[in-house]
Structure formats: C-alpha cells, structure tokens
C-alpha cells in the first residue's frame, strides 16, 4: 500500500505539471490563433485609458513579452523555489510554493486563494455530509420499501432535486427564508473558528441547496445499488445463517452497495472543492468558485493557473483517496 501511494503521488505531480502546461497553452495560444498579440492582452490590465507606454510597461512587468516556455519555466520555478517580485519600492520574496502574482492587482495569488479555501471547504464538506447522510438513508429506505408510497414519493422528490438547477433552488430558499420570513440572515461567511454557530447559520441555506441536488442523485444511486445488492446470493446466505435483518441490510447489503458510491463521492467532493461556482454566486459567498470567475473575467493568468492547479490537485487527491478506499473496502481489488 505504501508504494502504491508513493507511485500515485509521483504520477500526480506529473499530471499537475501537464495541467499547468495545458492551461498556459490555452491561455496564450488560443488567442494567438485568433490574432491577439500580447500587447493586446496587456491592455487588459491597464485600466480604462491605456497609453502605449503604460501597456508596454505592463507587458514587461508581467513578463508577457517573453517566450512561452520561458514564462512556463518561470512559473514552475516559482512553485519549486519561490519567486522574488518587485511591485513597488521593495522587492518581496514569495516562498515556495509560489503561485505567482495576479496580473490585475500584482498581489500574490496564494493568499487570495488561501482566504477563499475555507469558504469552499466549509461549503463542500458541510453539504457533502448532508447529502451523503440523507441521500444514502433515503436510498436505502426506498430500496427496502420498494414500490411503497415512501419509495415513490422519495423518488419523485429526487427527480425534482436532480432537475432543478442550483440557482433556482437557491433563489427560492433565499426568497423564503431570508427575505420573506426573515428566519435566517443574508448569507455572509463567518469563519468556523470565529463563531461556529453563526458559521453554520450562514451556510445552512447553501448547504441545503447544494445537498438537494446531490442527495437526489445519491438516493437514486443508493436505491439502485441496494436493489441490486439485495438480490445477490450472499444476502440469501446471510439470511440463511439467521442474521438479524438489520445486520443483513447494513453489514452485508449496504457495504456492497456503497462501493460505487465511494467512487462517485470522491469525484464529486474533489470537483466541489475546486469551487462550487453557481452556489457561491447565488449566495454571495466568496470561495474558489467566485475566485475562478473573477480570474477568468479579468484574464488573469496567474490566478487562473493557481485555481486550476489547486482544483486539479484536489481532484487528484480525491481520486487517490477513492482508489485507496476502494481497495480497502473491496479486497478483490487489492494489488
């Protein structure tokens, strides 16, 4: 298992290097195909009234006029060895891993992302706990009471959850709970360490909105998985051994039905950690999702690179954890 992890980590590093290279390519090469020069790009960061000299200065300051591979190499070097940067009277040192400086503000990218990570993390983890618990339990109950009123109602609600877009559900919840009934405050992010109660109070609506969508999916998946599993022969054997039904369902049935869920959950959580864009936008919570939107709108390459790599990193780690977990759960898969 140890070598497995080490091998995966090394492969992940290569993957992230490739992701960075691709991001670079997309950012620079595609516009170049459309005829845009780096001069044109630099005018983006100069504000409303770009004079030629200002644009040229920015171009040089941001290193845009250097060849692509030089910029890319510079970026990699920053990650590994840190970077010295001069955007004012003093030269500052940005320790490794340095994700560079924003093209727009020329302030380091990492502290911005770092302040956004807790928001996305809170949002993703809170929602994931809710959807996992509710989705799986509803799915299990539906499977066990297949065809009953509960089953049909649950699957009907699940259909709604899967069909209704997040911004729609979010808006409805906001309209009802915040503006109409004044039950909850308009969401702003309060750090958990500052006030856990307020942290949860502000996040409950985004959690429910996000969880509604996923819980529906997981309920359906769990139900399908349970139905399939409960038809397996080993369930019959478990019953034949005289095990109580509850043990049959949880120890024998659920455990087997959960393996595909683990894979999907890992992917879902990994993706979500890179930023729940629509949810963050709907509720005005500044996490990695909004960071991404702003980075793209500003055509801010270092920020785009930073958040892309961070998101890729989360997905890679999630993948790895899922693979390890899967091997742990299903002994047939172990090397």
């Amino acid at each position, binding site marked *: 298992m140890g070598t497995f992890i080490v091998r995966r980590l090394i492969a992940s590093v290569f993957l992230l290097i490739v992701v960075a290279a691709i991001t670079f390519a997309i950012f620079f090469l595609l516009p170049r195909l459309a005829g845009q020069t780096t001069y044109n790009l630099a005018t983006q960061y100069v504000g409303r009234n770009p004079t030629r000299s200002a644009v040229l200065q920015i171009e040089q300051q941001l290193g845009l006029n250097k060849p692509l591979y030089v910029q890319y190499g510079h970026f990699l070097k920053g990650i590994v060895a840190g970077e010295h940067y001069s955007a004012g009277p003093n030269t500052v040192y940005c320790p490794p891993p340095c994700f560079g400086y924003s093209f727009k503000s020329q302030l380091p990218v990492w502290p911005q992302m770092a302040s956004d990570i807790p928001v996305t993390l809170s949002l993703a983890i809170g929602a994931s706990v809710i959807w996992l618990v509710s989705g799986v339990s509803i799915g299990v109950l539906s499977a066990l009471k297949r065809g009953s009123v509960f089953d049909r109602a649950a699957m009907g609600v699940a259909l709604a959850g899967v069909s209704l877009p997040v911004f729609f559900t979010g808006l409805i919840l906001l309209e009802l709970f915040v503006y109409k009934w004044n039950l909850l405050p308009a969401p702003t992010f309060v750090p958990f360490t500052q006030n856990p109660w307020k942290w949860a109070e502000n996040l409950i609506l985004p959690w429910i909105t996000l969880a509604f969508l996923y819980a529906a999916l997981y309920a359906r998946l769990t139900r399908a998985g349970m139905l399939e599993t409960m038809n*397996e*022969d*080993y369930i*019959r*054997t*478990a*019953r*034949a*051994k*005289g*095990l*109580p*039904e509850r*043990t049959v369902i949880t120890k*024998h049935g659920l*455990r*087997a039905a959960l393996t595909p869920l683990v894979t999907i959950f890992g992917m879902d959580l990994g993706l979500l950690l890179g930023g729940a864009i629509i949810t963050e936008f709907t509720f005005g919570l500044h996490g990695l999702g909004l960071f991404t939107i702003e980075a793209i709108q500003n055509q801010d390459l270092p920020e785009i690179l930073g958040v892309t790599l961070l998101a890729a990193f989360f997905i890679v780690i999630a993948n790895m954890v899922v693979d390890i977990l899967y091997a742990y*759960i*299903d*002994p*047939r898969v172990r090397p």
Partner: protein
Amino acid sequence: MVGGESPRQGDGAGGRFARRRARHRSSMELEAHATRERTGEAEPSGMLDIRDLRIHFPTDDGLVKAVDGLSFTLDRGRTLGIVGESGSGKSVTSLGILGLYNTGNAQMSGKIYLDGEDIVAASQARVRELRGNKMAMIFQDPLSSMHPYYTVGDQIAEAYLIHNKVGKKAARAHAVDLLKRVGIPQAASRVDDYPHQFSGGMRQRAMIAMALSCDPELLIADEPTTALDVTVQAQILDLILDLQQEYDSAVIMITHDLGVVAELADDILVMYAGRMAEYGSSEDIFTRPGHPYTWGLLGSMPRLDEVRQERLLSIRGTPPSLINVPAGCPFHPRCDYAARTNGRSENEVPGLRPVGPGHLVACHLSTDEQRRIWAERAKVAS
C-alpha cells in the same frame, strides 16, 4: 394432496455420535400438541416432518404454484435426495424450510415440523433463531454466495457469534477448527483469506464449514457440486457424507444429477411441477422406478455399468409453467404412456400410491403396468 399417506420412516438410528438434545417446549408448541390430540392428527416424527407444504407466489401474470403439496419426513443421520428439473420446486422447498419466504409475498401453507416444532406457524424471530443454528444450508455457487468483502473466517464466525454467547476470539478459533475439519490445509492462515482467494473446491469446503458452524441438526445442500469440476465433486460429496456421520445430522441433498444422488441418498424424492412424483429408497428408485418421469430421468442418464446405447433418451417437451400447471397429471403432456390411462391423466390428479413398502408413486398407471413397462425399457437399454 388427494388421498395417500405421507411416507414415513422408521426410527433412524443415530450414527457414531448420536446426540439427543433435550429441548424446552414453548407454550405455542404445547398448544399445538393439544390441538393435534383433539383433531387426531399424528405427532410429528423425525427431525423434519413436512405435511402438505404449499408455497405459492402471486405475480402480475398469475399465481405461481412453486410447491404444491409436499409431504415427507426425515430422520437424523439419514440423507434425502430431492431430484427434479429446473423449476420443479426443489430450491423453493429448501428456502421455504429455512423460512426465507416469510417476509415476502409468498403464501405458505401446510406444516413443517423441525424436531417437533412447527416453523410455519412460529414467529419470525423464532425461525431466525433456528436458521443457521439448528438448520443450515449449503448453496450452489460458493463464489456468489459468500460476501466478497469479508474474510472466510469472519463469515464462518458470524453465524457462530449470532447464535452463541461467545467472544470473537473463541469464534475465530472455532472457525479455524471448522476449516481444518473440512479439509482446508493451513487453516490458521487461510481463515483470514477472502473468498476470491480460494479455488473452487476449497471455497465450497469453506461454505460447508460456514453451514456447520453451529452444529446444525438439519443440513440442506442445494446443488453443492454443480459448480465444481467432476474430480472435486467426489471429494465434496465424501466430505458431506463424512460430516453427516460425525454430526448425525439429517441431510437433504437437492440436485438434478442422479449420479450424485446415487452416491449419497438413503431416500429419494422426485419432484415435478412443484409436486411429488415419486418417493422411495435409493434402491427402489434405481432398480424399480414407477413414475414415467423417473424413467425418463434414468433413461437420459449415461451409465457406465451398462452397454453404451445408441442415443440418450431425452424426455420430450419442456417443463411446464408453474402458473398454468397442466390439468390432471402435470406430466401427462410429456408422458409416452398417458394414452394408457383412458383419459384419467388429463382430468384426474393422481394421488401418491404405495407401490411397495415405503415406495410411493403418483401415477394413474397400475403397479403392474409400471413394472412391465420398466422391464421393457430396461431390456431395450441393455
């Protein structure tokens, strides 16, 4: 069941280690006993006494009569082989005995006396107590019948832990013992292996160990060798025989393979379309079978002890639908001799008739006719 008697056995003498366990009679049992005295019904005998068992499943397409009037008894230390085609009701019978249809939408009627206790009428909790404990089952495909995520030792110990107040260590030691007993080498290390790490034969042995973990007095083996190589088959059958003698358990061997049955069974029950076609001792069935279906089964079986025939005789037609069982004798559409019954086969359901001591056949042909026809067929064969 129309007419007939349920076949009975004499007192089954125990094997080398006959165990007689005294049992506390519950109030429900005492009440049932009183009812029987009033109605004059006979007392349950033997380890397993099944009376007129019917298991029906209502489906959208109609009522599936999987088991329709089954009666037999089985003593400790004796093996009953249940033979029949797919869809004859063999597996449903075994699962019904274990009580695994209680929670579904199955309609079960009749009586199943396990060591004198009616488990059809018993509570689900009580049946669960007995399952895996007093009665256990060995399934056909050990790879799919064992949970892939838990070690073999875990799964063996599971039943033991549920039914006995023991600690995990003791249960594990017991599992190792059982693995040794069923002939798995290096049992102490293999107890922590997973089912997929065993070969087919070893896996089935492990399955047997699992069934035996609580010393069951009734062991049902549902096609235990079908999924295995022929060479391994013999080993497994030997093992089962061995264990039966050691534990003095009653064994039901369900199979479609007459060869297996010939090895192991003391008595044989031939089922067709959910009903009993023929019942008798192993010798009865093989030397003087009375039911045309049994003749068909025997005729379609390649025999090493006879001169090779030109062709194996198959039974024409296909197994009947259990929703629309043919009227009269269920076998009559496929029977070569139905014509000789002057239409009774098409209209009248044949009851089980004794054609010899302890030998019952459900057929309209007279005993003489049966003997004559069998003699003819045997001559043709040789």
